[in-house]
């Protein structure tokens, strides 16, 4: 019998530790499928973050580094500068990419570092138990914004993709979501492009992926999808924010 669906080669057999309804698993799979389709499993070197995806080095079946919190773009820079012909990617959450590691994110993009950054935005800190993230929405309740994020006190949620798109070195910036089959397809397309941009040596490529965190949002997986669609999509619009004209 012909097998028509299976686990991508670029994923190990290790079972994900993610909570029910968490969308990390979907994004892991998309990244692995893209690595398979581009035939770069033996060329790829990934950098895992600190956050829920800290164990990503156990899931991707490619050479991996585990980085300190926020430092993945710097670690990836070190790897890429040693192996400019390899395919180097980071996989980071919002605390990692948009808070403690903001400087590393901005400057890797600014240098046009030829790496691909996959940035999971679920508007909360997952691993540490639901604290306010830089991307937490106005009014959103977390353990450290128990009365809802007050923008006069804690500032506004940060739009990393729009910010990084202003930098010359950023060659490709897209925001996608994994809230529906249709959007998952679009997300994969963007992730693939972000790797192709690296292979073409065009510069820094970023895909921001809007994701759910049912556990820390205090919602069921289905309610979490609804919450993402109702609250995150209006503030974090989807689409290619920066791309070379001919690629659009």
């Amino acid at each position, binding site marked *: 019998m012909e097998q028509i669906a299976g686990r991508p080669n670029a994923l190990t057999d290790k079972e994900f530790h993610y909570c029910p309804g968490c969308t990390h698993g979907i994004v892991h799979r998309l990244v692995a499928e893209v690595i398979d389709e581009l035939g770069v499993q033996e*060329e790829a070197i990934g950098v895992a973050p600190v956050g829920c995806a800290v164990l990503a080095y156990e899931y991707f079946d*490619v050479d991996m*580094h585990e*980085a*300190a919190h926020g*430092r993945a773009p*710097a670690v990836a820079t070190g*790897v890429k500068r*040693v192996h400019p012909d390899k395919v180097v990617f980071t996989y980071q959450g919002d605390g990692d990419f948009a808070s403690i590691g903001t400087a*590393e994110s901005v400057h890797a993009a600014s240098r046009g570092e030829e790496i691909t950054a996959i940035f999971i935005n679920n508007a909360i800190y997952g691993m540490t138990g639901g604290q306010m993230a830089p991307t937490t929405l106005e009014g959103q309740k977390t353990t450290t914004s128990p009365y809802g994020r007050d923008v006069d006190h804690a500032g506004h949620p940060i739009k990393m993709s729009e910010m990084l798109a202003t930098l010359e070195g950023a060659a490709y910036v897209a925001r996608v979501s994994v809230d529906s089959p249709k959007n998952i397809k679009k997300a994969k397309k963007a992730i693939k492009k972000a790797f192709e941009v690296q292979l073409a040596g065009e510069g820094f490529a970023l895909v921001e992926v809007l994701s759910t965190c049912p556990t820390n949002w205090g919602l069921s997986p289905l309610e979490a999808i609804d919450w993402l669609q109702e609250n995150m999509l209006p503030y974090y619009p989807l689409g290619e924010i920066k791309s070379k004209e001919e690629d659009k």
Partner: protein
Amino acid sequence: MSEKVLMKGNEAIAEAAIRANCKHFFGYPITPQNELPAYMARKLPKIDGGVFLQAESEVAAINMVYGAAGAGARVMTSSSSPGISLKAEGISYIAGAELPAVIVNIVRGGPGLGGIQPAQSDYFQATKGMAHGDFKLVVLAPSSVQEAVDLTMEAFDIADRYRNPVMVIGDGIIGQMMEPVEFKDIGADDLPEKDWITDGAKGREKNVINSLHLQPEDLEEHNWKLDRKYKEIKKNEVKYETENMEDAEIAIVAYGTTARIAKTAIKEARAEGIKVGLIRPITLFPFPEEVINQAADQVDSFLTVEMSTGQMVEDVRLAVNGKKPVEFYGRTGGMIPSPAEIVEQLKEVRG
């Protein structure tokens, strides 16, 4: 044999690294070590595969080192005291993941922003309290530009041999002083193969560079493994120099620039009939405790001289283990002890 050239310490360290086949350097500007990255910025781009990159911060620089070391490169960063504090977290990760890397600290006065003049007040940081966790750096402390060159070249071999970060610690004087140096071909040819690097898992299982061990049993085992490595380093890598110790009644213990000043002081003191010798630790970790302990059976007392308020003196006291009194003389904050001051101290110690 290569000819001697006159070079500034910071530039000589950079050239030594290049001669040791270090092709990757990541750093961030800070005084008084700026000539080192500037030299790398001039030279490395001219070398095949060479990369100099000015990072956005010390934090980023050390994490680039972590990435490059994991990817298999001989890699260096340099900084000065406040910058080393910023690199500390990354150094802990490098030690935890057992990666070879060379870190240069051209020490200036602290704490805080401190000053930019020479100091030895990062001894504790380098040898004991660099960052979180059970780990050690190998710490090499040159007292001349030539020794800075030799130790820098050796640092890469030690780092590769033990898969451990190595610090070359100098003070602003070592960094800024010009002396004639010779670059000797002293590279080891028996270093272990790097079969653990991340360069794309082609025809092999994937490699992972990591310091996370969530199971306490695993982490304990890892930490004891590191400890066994440090014991091995203690056994094999201790370096020190002794001078005038044959008939000494007082032993000065000093390292780096301070040891050179002490040598002048010893000449002057001996001319006045004080029988004094010098024990100069060249490796701060591993610390030459045995030679100091043995000297305690011979001399009447010790005088530790440092450009700090007293840091290495604690290790001297541990090594002497109560056998004889250990006195301390220090200048700090960028002030440098003079030979005359040390002679005065020797007279007091002699009583």
